[in-house]
Structures are given as structure tokens and as C-alpha cells.
């Protein structure tokens, strides 16, 4: 920190931004206290792991979404994309297994396919948005319909189910634990750490933020805006692919309800976590906390029955607004 008084506004702004970042964390802490008071089972390790594991899907997608939103974009298609990737993976793996390949190889290839599809879908979004100059809202609203329609078509409106032997081999990816912590939580943590380094410690991260705060200025500063934008959508696609890798072994099936409304949950996690929807500024830690906060709310509602089930959505909505308000008050 510099001693010149000229610098002090920057310092105090920094402080305020740190305090603002505390908003969602304070909200989460408050919720946890309420949860424990209402039902002591809330604070058990098992429950904590349940909540973190189920947050992993949305959390991983939200990490990718943070980059897209921070660069001033949006992706509404992630839930449908996850569903289509899950369905394609299952069909592909069942097909390979039917062809007499070794199960382990089949699962590995299936996982590879998920990541490749995610990257490819993200790349298509990026190209349509930058080279095709179509608004991201419209591009991804379009693919939201397209992806889900294709899954429904593949599944004949029913469910696609992974073959028994493959399902048994693959299920540890969701159900197994390492050092007492379930695998999806480890992967969620790894994605969050890598994302955080990428955003705060690399040129790519700075370019994303620069484009989000002022695209024109970023262009003048010789940032390859189109390339960076395409990369953000590919990164998000990759995150959706990773989330799907973890999702498929849970139930071993994909149906037209898979990933329904995930896009809204992921966007809500990002925004509750303190990233501006208009782009430019944000925090990855906030996104992670935001995602956890959202699943803690429904967990607490499930663990208690003090209010009518008809009002669950109202409680969720209320808590989200209150947390967003705390953040605004401290900025």
C-alpha cells in the first residue's frame, strides 16, 4: 500500500469491496445458525456433506457462469446442455458396451465425450455471439430449447438409463469419498480454486473483467475481445461437462426433467455472490458461497415443517433478496 493520500480512495474502495464480499458469507452463516436452531441434525457432518455434494453440479456450472457474466454475457442454456450431454453420454456408453468393449474404457470414453461436447457447445455459442453478432440472450435461449428437445427426442419422452454393469462401475464417481469427503465436493473445490486463479492471477482473467466493464476500451487496448469471449463460453461448456460427469452416476439416468431450471440457479448463485449482472466486476468466492447458500435454504426447509410446503418458494425468494440487499448496503 502506498503512503500518498491520493491513493486512499482506492484503499477504502478496496475495503468496501471486501466488506461487500462478506455479504453472502454473513448470509450463509446466519442461515446455518437458524438451521441448527431449528433442527440440530442440520449441523451434522453427514448433512453438511449431503448439501455440499448436491451443490457441486450448480456450483461447478456457476464458476463457469461467473466468467461469462463478468465478460458481459449470459448463458441460459446450461440446464438443457447438461441434460443433452447426460443423455448423449448414456446412449454412447450403452452403445459401446453393447459392442463388447471393456467397461472401464467405455466409462472413460463416455466421460471424455461429455467434456468434448461441453467444449463444442460452448464454442458454438461463442462463435454465434461474436462472429454471428447475435445477442447472447437470444443465442442461448435458442439452444435452451434445441438441447432439451433433442434429449426428449432421444429419450422418446421417457428416461435414458445406463446399463446395470456400467452404472455399478461408474457410480463411485458420485458416491465414493476421499478422506471422508465425497468426490463431487473435491472436484467442486478444485474447479473453484482453478477458476479463482484463472480469474485473479492471469491475463485471461483480467481481459474478461476489462471486456465486461467496457468492451470498446478493451478493444482499443488490443485485447482480442472475440477470442476471450469465445473462451469464456467454452470454459462454461467445459464446466457443464464436468458437472454432467458427476450427475450421470448419481441416478444413472437422464430424462427430460434433468437440469430443469439449473440456468436460473447458476445465474442466481453468481449474482447473489456479488457479481454484477451487467458484467465487469465480481468474485468467484462469492459465487461458491452463493451456490451453497441456495442449497442450504432448501435443505433447511426440508429438515423442518414449521411452514406450509406451499410457501417454500416464497422463503427461498425472500432469503435471496435479503442477501442481495445486505451486499448492496455494504458496497
Amino acid at each position, binding site marked *: 500500500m502506498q503512503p500518498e493520500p491520493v491513493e486512499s480512495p482506492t484503499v477504502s474502495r478496496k475495503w468496501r469491496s471486501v466488506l461487500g464480499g462478506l455479504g453472502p458469507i454473513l448470509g450463509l452463516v446466519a442461515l446455518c445458525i437458524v438451521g441448527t436452531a431449528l433442527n440440530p*441434525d442440520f449441523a451434522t457432518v453427514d448433512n453438511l456433506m449431503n448439501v455440499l455434494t448436491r451443490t457441486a453440479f450448480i456450483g461447478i456450472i456457476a464458476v463457469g457462469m461467473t466468467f461469462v457474466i463478468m465478460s458481459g454475457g449470459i448463458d441460459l442454456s446450461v440446464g438443457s446442455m447438461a441434460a443433452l450431454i447426460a443423455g448423449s453420454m448414456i446412449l454412447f456408453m450403452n452403445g459401446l458396451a453393447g459392442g463388447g468393449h471393456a467397461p472401464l474404457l467405455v466409462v472413460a470414453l463416455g466421460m471424455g465425450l461429455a467434456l468434448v461436447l461441453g467444449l463444442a457447445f460452448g464454442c458454438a455459442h461463442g462463435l454465434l455471439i461474436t462472429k454471428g453478432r447475435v445477442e447472447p440472450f437470444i443465442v442461448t435461449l435458442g439452444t435452451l430449447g434445441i438441447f432439451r428437445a433433442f434429449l*426428449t427426442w432421444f429419450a*422418446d*419422452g421417457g428416461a435414458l438409463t445406463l446399463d446395470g454393469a456400467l452404472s455399478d462401475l461408474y457410480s463411485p464417481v458420485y*458416491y465414493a469419498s476421499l478422506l471422508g469427503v465425497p468426490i463431487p465436493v473435491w472436484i467442486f473445490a478444485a474447479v473453484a480454486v482453478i477458476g479463482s486463479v484463472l480469474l485473479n492471477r492471469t491475463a485471461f482473467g483480467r481481459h474478461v473483467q476489462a471486456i465486461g466493464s467496457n468492451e470498446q476500451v478493451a478493444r482499443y487496448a488490443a485485447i482480442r475481445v472475440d477470442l476471450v469471449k469465445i473462451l469464456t463460453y467454452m470454459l462454461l461448456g467445459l464446466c457443464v461437462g464436468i458437472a454432467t460427469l458427476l450427475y450421470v452416476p*448419481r*441416478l444413472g439416468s437422464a430424462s427430460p426433467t434433468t437440469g430443469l431450471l439449473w440456468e436460473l440457479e447458476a445465474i442466481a448463485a453468481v449474482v447473489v455472490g456479488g457479481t454484477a449482472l451487467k458484467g465487469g466486476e465480481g468474485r468467484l468466492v462469492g459465487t461458491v458461497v452463493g451456490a451453497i447458500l441456495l442449497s442450504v435454504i432448501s435443505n433447511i426447509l426440508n*429438515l423442518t415443517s414449521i411452514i406450509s*410446503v406451499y410457501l417454500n418458494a416464497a422463503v427461498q425468494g425472500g432469503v435471496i433478496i435479503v442477501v442481495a440487499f445486505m451486499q448492496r448496503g455494504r458496497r
Partner: protein
Amino acid sequence: MKSLIRAVGAGVLALSACTAFAAEKVTLGVAIPTATHGFTGGIVWWANQARQELEKAHPDLKIIVKTAGSAPEQANQLQDLLTVNKINALVIFPFESASLTKPVAQVKGKGVYVTVVDRGLTDTSAQDAYVAGDNTAFGKLPAEYLAKRLGGKGNIVMLRGIPTTLDNERYNAFMGVMKQYPDIKVLDAKYGNWNRDDAFKVTQDYLTRFKHIDAVWAADDDMAVGVLKAIDQAKRTDIKEVFGGAGAKGMVKTILDGKDKRIQADVSYSPKFIYDAIKLTAEARLKGAKLPATTIIPSVLITKENARQFYFPDSPF
């Protein structure tokens, strides 16, 4: 007043019957929701199945199947069916009861014979016939079955679908039976949205919250899949029975093969009733006859003994 409407309705009906007879051709429109989950997937499959079979059997019959993603879309399709396809009979699975009552009434006003399936209209004079599954039995049969299996004593948790009149009917029927068994405690009932993932989460939380559960009424075969996975994950052995509902092929197969000790029975609520409704309507109209005002396709208990007749391996549901 009501009888007056009925009389007028009957008059319109008689007229339309005449025209249908004179032309000796039936053009039957089928309006159903798009396949968004297992059950509606089954509806679409069975509707197309009916079209294929019946068109082959009756050269004078033409069936047009339309699927809609929302109530307004379905209302638009009704207009198209009437003006473009010139239908003289309609089988509709309304997307929503209230918002489709007026559009259906208009179609009927033009002399089209209307059969409504599953979700009743708010004004029944807008329909000629009503074919539906039995939602009361859907709740009552599992309640009686579980009460018997538990010997009238124990803890039950249950899942509900999506807040709708249909879900309420099932829930109330279940709770109505449970009133006779004061030693059975229904611990809680939360919405799982007829969806495997939500059912998985809700069950995980039930298992955290309740240390001893004897039976789960999952109220839907898709939700039962999520329930079983959550129980397996928690390695809980106290749950003796999981009861789904609707008779999805996976579940019926499980009962048939005795693959899971917790799944011993199911209750039928097959999307096949759209097939029955189309068949009944088409065959009646070809003869110029009409259907009884209400046809209830009974829900029955599926156990290992009769599971074979509820197993349709080709259906997606």
C-alpha cells in the same frame, strides 16, 4: 339450468352425429401435452400407437395428433384443428383445466364431438365425454397396502408431486385411509415435483431428519427411483417398503423379477388411458354412437402375481 344446457348439448350432439354419419368419415383431432417427463412421454407414445392401429383398421378414420408445450399453444392448436383439419371429433388431454375450458367449449359449439381425458374441464358442459384415471384409488390403494404391510403401526414419509388438484386428490385419499390407523405416523409430506433429482434430495433430508422410517410413499415411479438411490447412499436398512405409483415399465419389471425387496407393489395409472380414450371415441363415432358421460379407467394394485399384464417393454414409460 344445468339440465337445459345438457339438453342443448344433447341437441348439438345429435346434429353432429348426423353430419358425421352423412360424411361417413371421422377426422379425429388429438391434443396432448408434449413429452416433458416419463408420464407425458407415455401419453405421446400411446396416442401415436392408437393412431397407427386405428387408421389401419378403419379406412374412414383419420387421426391427427398435436402436442403442445403450454396452455396457450394448445388453444391455438384447437383452432387449427378446427379450421384447417376440419375435425369432427376431438380427444383432448387439457394442459390446464381452467384455461382450456373456453377454447374447448368453442370447438364443441362448432359441432365437434369432444372427449376430455384426465384433467376435467371446469365447466363440464364443454365436453361430451370424460375419460380419466382414478386418482382416489391412486392414493387409497397404497395407503391400504402400506397399512397392511406395516401391521397398522409405524412411521411413513411421503412425497408429493406438483401442487395440482390431481396431487391433492391422491394426497387426501391417502390421508383419509391413514386416519383409521392411529398408530401409523405420517412424519412429513414434501414436494418432489414428480422428478427423480428432487425426490433424491428430499429423501436425503428425510433420512437426516428421521432416524426411523418404516415406509416411503413416493407417489410416483420416477420419484421412487430417486428415493431408492438416496436410501442406498445412506445405507439405511430401516425402510421396509417403498411404494411408487403409475406403473412405469422399470418399476413393473422390478416387481416382476423380484429385484428389490423394498418394491413389492405399485398402483397402475397408465398413460395408456389416452389410447383407450382415442379408441373408444373413434369407434363410437364411426358408428355414430356416443360414449357414456364419464369413463373411469380403474387404478389397480400391481403385485408380482398380475405384474405381467402391466408390462409394456416398448413404451418409453
